[in-house]
């Protein structure tokens, strides 16, 4: 259940719930990732083991990673957010429209954030206060948000030529890292994503308010009787989710230099798959940022492998589903064996 910390935290005495199962899951995910890397490295040493390729893989997975973190957060409280992709598109469209209208960067970006947070709050409010299933609420939000984005743009790309140039460049800007003779360009996009992942991963496994999310997901009634403010924190979880969606929207808008209503179509499905592969459960109370990261990475590496091995790149889509099914299948076998 805990995350990157499980590895960082050398304190073996601190037993984390499901530690044996989940840290072994992280171990296996790590191993499988390593096997894929080594395998591809042997088969395609030149193309795969190049910084350019790694950079491409990591940059491409950034958006998926941010959305998968958003998904993990709500899965932990036994929720679900089908609207991540659609809200990302809406937030991006709003930012682009405000920029195009000549608004300075900060208010425009804030506008996008507010829209995302409003969507997150609405999701949380209907789920917690009205008591409608997360699946239905966020499904409605998904259609509605995507619909509004399309209405606002009439389906067109929204560029913002008059916006400050730094905004349309920062996501792709690269800091050059000089190691010996080689120089490695690290895109800002990647730095932001990985920093956000690391910080949130540490907070989620240590910071008390976020730790409480696990208790809510495991048993909401018991959490309530234990003095945990279930309603407030559950809504907060949906807003945290929206916050990460907004980061993804911001980076995507900057990197592509346009806002577009069709960003992130079916992204919610990949996000769920990655989170579940990483150890989150639809029954709440488990999941970790580190596991989710490994899940996203595995999907990205396999996708990359398909392209590099001259396999039909079209098959890469299918692997997401297969990996998901195999992951839950192995899990099932393991629990059945454990319980006898």
């Amino acid at each position, binding site marked *: 259940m805990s995350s990157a910390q499980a590895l960082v935290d050398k304190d073996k005495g601190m037993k984390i719930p499901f530690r044996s199962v989940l840290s072994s899951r992280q171990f296996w995910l790590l191993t499988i990732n390593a096997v894929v890397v080594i395998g591809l490295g042997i088969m395609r040493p030149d193309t795969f083991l190049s910084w350019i390729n790694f950079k491409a893989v990591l940059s491409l997975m950034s958006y998926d990673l941010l959305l998968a973190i958003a998904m993990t957060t709500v899965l932990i409280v036994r929720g679900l957010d089908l609207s991540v992709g659609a809200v990302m598109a809406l937030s991006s469209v709003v930012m682009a429209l405000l920029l195009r209208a000549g608004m300075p960067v900060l208010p425009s970006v804030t506008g996008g954030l507010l829209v995302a947070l409003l969507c997150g709050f609405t999701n949380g409010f209907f789920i917690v206060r009205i008591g409608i299933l997360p699946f239905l609420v966020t499904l409605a939000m998904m259609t509605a948000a995507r619909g509004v984005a399309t209405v606002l743009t009439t389906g067109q790309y929204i560029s913002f030529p008059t916006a400050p140039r730094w905004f349309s460049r920062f996501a792709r800007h690269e800091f050059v890292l000089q190691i010996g003779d080689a120089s490695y360009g690290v895109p800002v996009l990647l730095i932001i994503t990985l920093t956000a992942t690391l910080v949130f991963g540490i907070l989620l496994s240590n910071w008390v308010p976020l730790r409480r999310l696990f208790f809510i997901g495991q048993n909401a009634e018991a959490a309530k009787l234990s*003095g945990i403010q279930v309603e407030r924190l559950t809504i907060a979880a949906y807003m945290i989710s929206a916050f990460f969606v907004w980061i993804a929207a911001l980076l995507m808008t900057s990197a592509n230099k346009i806002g577009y209503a069709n960003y992130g179509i079916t992204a919610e499905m990949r996000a769920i798959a990655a989170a579940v592969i990483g150890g989150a459960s639809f029954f709440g109370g488990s999941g970790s940022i580190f596991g989710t990261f490994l899940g996203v990475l595995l999907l990205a590496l396999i996708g990359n492998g398909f392209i590099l091995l001259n396999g039909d790149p079209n098959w890469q889509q299918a692997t997401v589903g297969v990996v998901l099914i195999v992951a839950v299948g192995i899990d099932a076998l393991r629990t059945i064996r454990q319980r006898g």
Partner: protein
Amino acid sequence: MLQATGINKSFFGNRVLEDVNFDVKAGQVHALIGENGAGKSTLVNILSGNLQRDTGKVVFDGDTVSFDNPLEAMSAGISVVHQELSIVPQATVAENIFLRREITNRFGFNDWNAMYARCQAVFDRMQVDINPRALAGSLSIGMQQLVEVAKSVVLNAKLIFMDEPTSSLSEKEIDELFQVVRDLRDSGLAIVFISHKLNELFEISDHVTVLRDGRNVGTRLTAEASSDEIISLMVGRSLSKLYPERSASVGDVVFSCRDLALFGAVKDVNFDLRRGEILGMAGLIGAGRTEAMLALINARKRASGRFELNGKPIELNSPHEALGHGIVYLSEDRKGSGLFLDYDMVLNVSSCVLDREARFGMENRKAMREATWRYVTEMDIRPKRPSATILSLSGGNQQKILLAKSLNADPKVLIVDEPTRGVDVGAKAQIHKKLRELANAGCSIILISSELPEVLGMSDRVLVFRSGTVVADLDNKAGVLTQEDVMNAAVELEGLAV
């Protein structure tokens, strides 16, 4: 009719049944009694095909039998009325009764009219007034219980196991159920009646078998047995010594509650609680004790209520606020709303106070672990391994963890709801001892329990609930209150069904 000899069963190396012999005769009601964990449910599950025995022999109706699943047992004529009702509320009564036994045409389509008619005939025979076309969910729990019984009758069962059928029924419903049971008995069926309640078993059964620790410690003719004898068979020792000594150190009023009401459940509840006092709450199930306490901390949205702590009025708008005032409620349903089953002891014990000794809002795991370890040793929680998940613990140890969780929040007012339900005798005594120690240390305790001896043995004062309100406030400092005193208050009126 049924003869089981030498039944053995182990789970993961734990012997739960040891050489059990059990005979049931046709046309009789046979009571099966024993403490939780004595093996009653396992025995029933084996005899009804839910579980397979390790060794032993079962003869039913003259044939040696071995059922692989409940269906086989059912078709042989053995059915079970489970403790948790297996009624589906969205389906009609008739459909519930005929599930898997539908009367259909040759294409498999239900013949509704035939089913309703047949169902009505069964109800007529049982002399109960239930409409076969009604939705099962619209019936009271008692009626649903009768529907369960009707299900067995429709199956032409020769032997019916009834697993604690009265646990959530009102007195009146129990009477109705007993009437049906007697009628069935008189028509030649054998009925095995499992219960915790001695008085019921004396009322209804012909034979009684006592299980203790997986063994049959005695079968008696009910008419010849005394309750003392049964009790001593069950526990292996006399009951009266189970409760810790009272102390005389009850102080001033700490907490008072006025005009507490919860729509549809509780009204006009007033009481004062003194320092170091254990205040028992007695009453039948459904009398509103649990609901009143949930309303007190506003876990169920109450209609009204005013509270004072140490003479000062306080707001209790949520369990969170209550916790802030040192008022902690310990749930009656430890699995459903008490514990976090997949998590370990440390997280469960710390769950109320995750932010204690936190640095920059970060969990202090060392402090959490130390606190847990303290409770594990103090209350003798097994296994002595704080990293064990709750799911792997026995009921008694789970209950101790639940208590430890509440204690870890430093309660001034501790509300314990059925703190020893489903707990073995040893753990029960430990929990009682711990509660008394707490009270002696100045904590005020509200004890809700459906076991009258427990309420009487532990409490300094007893509030009796009936139909959602307090009907009696009885002093028990001397410990001389009797079960009759309390029951008289609890069941004064006719038809108090809630």
